[in-house]
């Protein structure tokens, strides 16, 4: 469903362009779970952003479900994101002025497939029952991240991209959230790609790739 | 509401401007109405009839300069009654309106004056005959107004004419009772069509000495138009042999009511009723934003008349408080000659 070939990406810095990705190729199939590991600054997040169509590359190609992601317009990429790709961030990125219930429903409503029953089911599964009317700042970090996962999953994405989703959580909470995300994503049959610097977390994934010096190493 | 409409409303003193040209087709409450048995007597009837709603002293003249240039002159004093009396003072009950026109082949000069009666600024005296508004004046001598002097002044023109009658006063319709519609609306109407004219036209380019023929119309009524009549086309024609023809068509919604008076050179009059005079507009032109006929075919089969008219100046539009076409014409066909044409309600 997702094919990346020879992807190249540089960042412009004060000292001139710094290459981050130097010809990365990767393929993700439906239902795949893939851990993307690497040191901080190795380009994991950049790769995820490119997969989500949030950024542009200098070379290479990303094909998602038959579409050449990099050649799409901003509006078309936005459409892909809201209906077929889900993003989970390290900082949760909830909308602080919306309640838990509103945050959960947000992406599904944007995608035009809001289903209250599905939201209710997910709320239960995520252990957020009773917290629907709270605002994000009234939740713990683990609860916030579960809301973010729920927001992504209610829209029914085909691919979930998670960027250090437990990076802001203590280990126990992180593990619990991780397990829950893994379980729920697998249930929907969507593919899951997670960037993490933790080898321990990467253990649970079917495939693992390591990003070093802008190149992928398969383990 | 603009000043023109205000003045017009004052002048015609009516409630509905939508009815007929200048509101002539309205009810005549409180005012006298024309009487077929009325004997027109002079000099009294040269003067004003304040118990009738409207009245006019109307003189048109076709003139010629020594170099052959043709001119036309119009001098009109309208009287409109606010109430059927004439009193002294600012609210004397009568409002007067003067219209003056001077037509050359190139230019149509026109001017207008409003004044109330009762303070000496405008009015009509029967004996000695004087009709005046401001410095405009028509003075007459003799029981039958054999002599007239005429003066009017606009912003950029004036004229000063002397008129002498070559024939008698004539009466239209039945002894001056002139029917205006099949429903019987009528007016009192007499004319002096036999004036010879000499005088001076003052134009921006200088004075012009002129001679020609003049025609005075006197008419008064309280409701001369039927409610559905929206305007009229009126001719006064002078044939080369000395005969005269007055004819008009009153345009109703569907039909045109016509009337004519044939005047022999000696003043013998033959009236013709509705339908005997035929008028057909041959050519239309856009003047001041309106479609106006500029050439007519006029037929009076009883007299073998079948002529086509041509205006001296198609733009003889009296663009004043109420607007109409009035100017000199010439005609040819079965007869030749000159005359005046008035077209209202366009």
């Amino acid at each position: 469903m997702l094919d990346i070939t020879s992807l190249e990406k540089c960042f412009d810095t004060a000292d001139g362009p710094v290459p981050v990705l130097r010809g990365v190729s990767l393929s993700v199939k439906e239902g795949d779970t893939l851990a993307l590991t690497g040191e901080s600054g190795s380009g994991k997040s950049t790769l995820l952003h490119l997969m989500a169509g949030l950024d542009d590359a200098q070379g290479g190609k990303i094909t998602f479900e038959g579409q050449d992601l990099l050649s799409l317009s901003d509006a078309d990429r936005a459409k892909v994101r809201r209906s077929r790709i889900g993003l989970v961030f390290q900082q949760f990125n909830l909308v602080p002025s919306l309640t838990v219930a509103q945050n959960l429903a947000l992406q599904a409503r944007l995608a035009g497939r809001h289903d209250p029953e599905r939201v209710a089911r997910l709320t239960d599964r995520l252990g957020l029952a009773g917290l629907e009317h709270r605002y994000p700042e009234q939740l713990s970090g683990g609860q916030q991240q579960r809301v973010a996962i729920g927001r992504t999953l209610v829209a029914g994405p085909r691919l979930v991209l998670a960027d250090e989703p437990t990076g802001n959580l203590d280990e126990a909470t992180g593990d619990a959230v991780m397990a829950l995300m893994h379980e729920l994503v697998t249930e929907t049959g969507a593919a899951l790609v997670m960037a993490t610097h933790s080898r321990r977390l990467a253990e649970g994934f079917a495939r693992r790739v390591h990003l070093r010096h802008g190149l992928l190493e398969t383990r | 509401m603009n000043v023109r409409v205000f003045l017009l409303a004052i002048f015609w003193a009516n409630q509905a401007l939508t009815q007929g040209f200048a509101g002539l087709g309205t009810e005549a409450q409180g005012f006298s109405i024309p009487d077929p048995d009325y004997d027109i007597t002079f000099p009294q009837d040269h003067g004003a009839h304040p118990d009738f709603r409207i009245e006019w002293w109307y003189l048109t003249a076709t003139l010629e300069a020594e170099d052959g240039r043709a001119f036309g002159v119009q001098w009109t004093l309208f009287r409109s009654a606010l109430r059927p009396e004439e009193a002294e003072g600012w609210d004397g009950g009568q409002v007067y309106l003067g219209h003056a026109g001077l037509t050359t082949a190139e230019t149509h000069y026109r001017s207008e004056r409003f004044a109330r009666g009762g303070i000496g600024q405008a009015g009509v005296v029967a004996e000695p005959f004087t009709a005046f508004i401001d410095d405009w004046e028509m003075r007459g001598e003799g029981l039958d107004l054999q002599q007239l002097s005429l003066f009017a002044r606009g912003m950029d023109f004036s004229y000063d004419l002397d008129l002498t009658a070559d024939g008698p006063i004539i009466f239209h319709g039945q002894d001056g009772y002139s029917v205006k519609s099949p429903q019987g609306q009528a007016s009192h109407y007499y004319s002096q069509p036999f004036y010879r004219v000499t005088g001076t036209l003052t134009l921006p380019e200088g004075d012009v000495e002129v001679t020609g023929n003049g025609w005075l119309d006197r008419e008064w009524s309280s409701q001369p138009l039927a409610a559905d009549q929206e305007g009229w086309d009126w001719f006064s024609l002078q044939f080369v042999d000395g005969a005269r023809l007055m004819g008009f068509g009153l345009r109703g919604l569907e039909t045109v009511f016509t009337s004519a008076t044939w005047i022999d050179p000696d003043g013998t009059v033959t009236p013709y009723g509705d339908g005997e005079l035929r008028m057909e507009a041959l050519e239309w032109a856009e003047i001041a934003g309106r479609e106006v006929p500029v050439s007519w075919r006029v037929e009076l089969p009883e007299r073998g008349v079948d002529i086509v008219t041509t205006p001296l100046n198609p733009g003889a539009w009296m663009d004043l408080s109420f607007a109409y076409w009035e100017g000199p014409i010439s005609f040819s066909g079965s007869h030749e000659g000159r005359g005046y044409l008035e077209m209202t309600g366009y």
Partner: protein
Amino acid sequence: MPVLETLFSHWRRHPGQLATLVLGLALATALWSGVQAINEEARQSYARAASTLGAGQGERLISPDGAEIPVADYVSLRRAGWLVSPVMEGELALSGTTWRVIGVDPLTAPTGAIPQGAFETTADAPAFLGRPGLVFVAPDSAPAAPPDFPAIITSDAIAPGLMLTDIGTAARLLERNTLSFLTLVPTQPDGLPPLSTLTDLRREAPAGEQDLSRLTDSFHLNLTAFGFLSFAVGLFIVHASIGLAFEQRRPVFRTLRAIGVPFSRLITALAFEVTLIALVAGSAGVILGYVIAAALLPDVAGTLHNLYGAQISGTLAFRPVWALLGLAIAVLGTWVSSAQSFWHLITMPLLAPAQPRAWSMRSARATRRQAGVGAVLLVISAALAGIGGSLAIGFLSLGALLIGAALLLPGVVVVVLRIAERPIRSAYGEWVLADTRQLLPGLSLALMALLLALAANIGVSTMVGSFRLTFAGWLDQRLVSELYITAQDEYQADAIRDFLAPQVASVLPIAMAETRIDGLPATVFGIVDDDTYREYWPLLETVTDPWDRLADDTGLLINEQLARRSGLDLGDRVTLHPDLTLPVAAIYSDYGNPNGQAMISLDLLEQTFPDTDQTRSAFRTGDADVEALRQSVLARFDLPQGHIRDQASQKAVALRVFDQTFRVTGALNVLTLAVAGFALLASLLTLANMRLPQVAPIWALGQTRARLARTELIRTLGIVAVTWVIALPVGLALAWVLLAIVNVEAFGWRLPMTLFPADYARLLGYAMLSSTIAAALPALRLLRLPPAQLLKVFSNER
């Protein structure tokens, strides 16, 4: 819709911020549109006056001896071909009010003599000429009329206090049949006999409606400038609160885009949001503006009447066009204020750090650049002030001065902080100053607004104060006589003078005639030679023996307005009348009167002007008891209320008129200051929330919250004090421009500038008080902040 809901949820969670924005915009719109409403009302009144007096728009024919004109004279002119129209004017007492009745002849009046729209229906027209006739009056003023009175019709086109009617109706109401004057239609037919061969009536140039609008233009420009200043101050608030709302929501914008909202839709939604808020706040502002205008209008009407003799209706009409314009300016102002925020959003990369940037954090370079622009504007302002010579240049100079000073302010404060830093040794002190510098960009807009308001306040109060001081001193000089009497007519005036002459030290008849000097209306006074004038009359410039020149008819005196307007100097020759031209012997100051004046000897006045008003006299009472004299005159002569005044009450009247004249200016001044205070409050409140991350580490390092709160308060007061210090010279410069350029153009006189340190100190007090209130709230909040909240800063940070 989810996008809009998400955007609006921000305001639901931050109602205070929304209130600030709406209130700021509403206030700005209110002051702007309030001033517009006042100006529009005044303009309408002038137009009405011009069109009804309109009879006076063209030249007039008047009787040379001021007598009424017989109708026969009118008729004979018409019969000679001259296009003239009769006008009958008079006064009519009806249900306790005196009405000015103007009768016109619609049949002959020139266009414009009857106000447009006066006749609603064609039926009115014949009724207008008939009996009982129609009279038109201004709305809401229809008197209770007797049964046989003409029908009363109200019309917007009629000036208050006026009855416009047909001349026939006027003749019946005034029980008269003579005419006041004839209007000459502007274009006359060719070839008329000369007027002088027909009548001895005199041609008179049109009465002064144009003069009125010329004089009042400056007043309205003044108001407009104030309205604009208030609007600009208000927009600072709008700019600040919209900027804050955008910055705070940056992470949300990013999240929305990440989960699939196209950028274009986000921008559209934001534009919609901003416009909607502008419309709501604008509507509130327009309503508020109407209320302000309605409240101020009576004062404005008083001012215009006092200064220029203009009649303005004291009630405000609601005009939909005005309301729409008010809304439009609100929306436009909001767009302009939010342009910068939109620009940041558009140029922000999608993946920029989602952390809110330190709000409006600006580089030192930007501050320097802004200060540079400010300095250039100040130079331009000074150059313009140097050129002077017109009202527009005066106001441009003022604008450049105020904007330049405002732009320069942040840079100056930075410099002040840097200087303050040097002697400081304590770590806490250093932190406070460093923190203040960091705080500055967020506060600078509010401070600029405050600077504008303070400077305007200082400037205007200095101008008004200087004016009042000069005016009072001038009154003392000018009103030397102890008793002033205006008689009903000249016979009575003579009788009073004869009666009092044996009892007083000297009798000073005041005779005057109206004329035009240099084409503008002016009054010529005739005086007797008396020591009173020689000793007290307030001369600005003079030859050695002005009063001798005046007495022997070899010179005249003119007032300052006339001298400035016509560029006259001592010795220049002035033509008062075709038969009278004299050199200027002295120029005297003359306040509270916009028109030109000249003084000649009484005898010369009488010889030259047949039509003089000699009803007034002043009396030097010497040792006599003024009150006893007053009573004796009142007992003997029939004098209306207010026609006999002693010196003290005459002065009181003059000062009251003066104070009323500047009441509107004062009110607008206070309102502008209030808006600026509000801007400061709004900025401090929003900053307080954002500053926790800066304050928390200091608290963690061992400072008490109480000390932190105190520091906040003192720091705010310090910054406000610095702003006031900078506002002081700006305000004085403003006052100078007002006195030396604007007043000279608007009124025709130049006044010496006086300083009022006590007033300025009081203003500082007010500013401190309001900023204490503004700073107290955030400081209090900091004091009460649960430590957990401060701790959260650390746990939430990255």
